[in-house]
């Protein structure tokens, strides 16, 4: 299992469409992916869980990935968040 802390950096935070992108990526992997804020923990493969995190801009997120393709999964999710979900702001 690998884990990494990433900060949500897009202006709108983890809103509905951004969450949908994240969940879509997480679902491409076999590994289990979970996201944790200091308030709660959610399965990154389920849209409701990710939305319930209500992670605004600057929220630190701990990504935990466990499975055969964990390294690639972590790298893609981290890239998506740091790329501001492709929103440019």
């Amino acid at each position, binding site marked *: 299992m690998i884990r990494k802390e990433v900060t949500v950096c897009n202006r709108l935070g983890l809103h509905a469409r951004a969450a949908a992108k994240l969940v879509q990526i997480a679902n491409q992997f076999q590994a289990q992916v*979970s996201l944790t804020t200091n308030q709660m923990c959610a399965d990154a*493969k389920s849209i*409701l*869980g990710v*939305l*319930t995190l209500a992670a605004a801009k600057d929220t630190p997120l701990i990504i935990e990935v466990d499975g055969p393709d964990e390294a690639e999964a972590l790298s893609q999710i981290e890239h998506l968040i740091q790329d501001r979900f492709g929103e440019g702001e």
Partner: protein
Amino acid sequence: MKTLAGQEIHPRMSVHQFVDLFSSLRIHVTAGRGGLDREIESPRIQKPGLALAGVHEYIHPERIQILGETEISYLNRWSGEDRLKILQPIFERGICCFLLTKGLPPPEELVTLAEGTDTPLLTSTEKSSLVINQVTDVLMSALAPVLSVHGVLVDVYGVGLLIIGRGSIGKSESALDLIVRGHRLVSDDVVEIRRQADHLTGTAPELLRYHMELRGLGIINIKELFGVVATRSQVEVELVVELEHWQENGNYDRLGLDELTISILGLPVPYLLMPVAPGRNITILLEVAVRNLLLKRKGIHSAKDFTRRLQQMLEANVDEPEP
């Protein structure tokens, strides 16, 4: 024993939040407003009688210090100068807040020290006994640790059934099936479990309440779609079923004699591992699992009864003479 995975959160409460929560006790801030962001870390209260008598090592600064008629009468026996000497070392311990009951007028020195050290001094018009009961009761639940887990919580025949398992195993679909069959949804996807004494109460996070997500349909509102009887705001978590893809060499329980449990916030809860495969109607299996749990509680244990009868038959066969 297996432990239910999840994120454990210890809720915090500032004095400010405490005052807002107890508007029913008519609590007012009399002095020390500068310290309203101090945190109350313990649900227990303390009456600082010993500390007033000069013994300070047993004081718990993280607990609300209740000053009732006894404490105030004792303080009023002393001169102003002595009161200051008595109270000063207590304030130096960094008390989260003082709560003066019965609408008693606070001695001047108490107010001065509260202001000087930014220690909130709260007052209530209610009697100490009532204040202590209500404060302890509410703080016990507000400060109880919360475990946030992935899973679906459904009330099945009044029993809180927590369905866990990997993503896309069909937890939500099973829950929807249960709802259609008349059971009630508490939470889909994220369940918050609180422990109070020997009980585990499960609820949905505020934002999520009564919503579900189903692949292909998106987010739906169960309360609007199925009506108020299809949902429930909280239920006691009494059974955990883990769904997993059928494994050829999986070690599944065939007898039902071993009663497995899973630990949730330190409490054991009955646990079943259930394989999912084509042709297995998970909803019916879940319903029967709950019926069986209820039956066991009534003292009827199907698996044990069966093996007892088998045992009797084996013994009878041994006694029969050889032909």
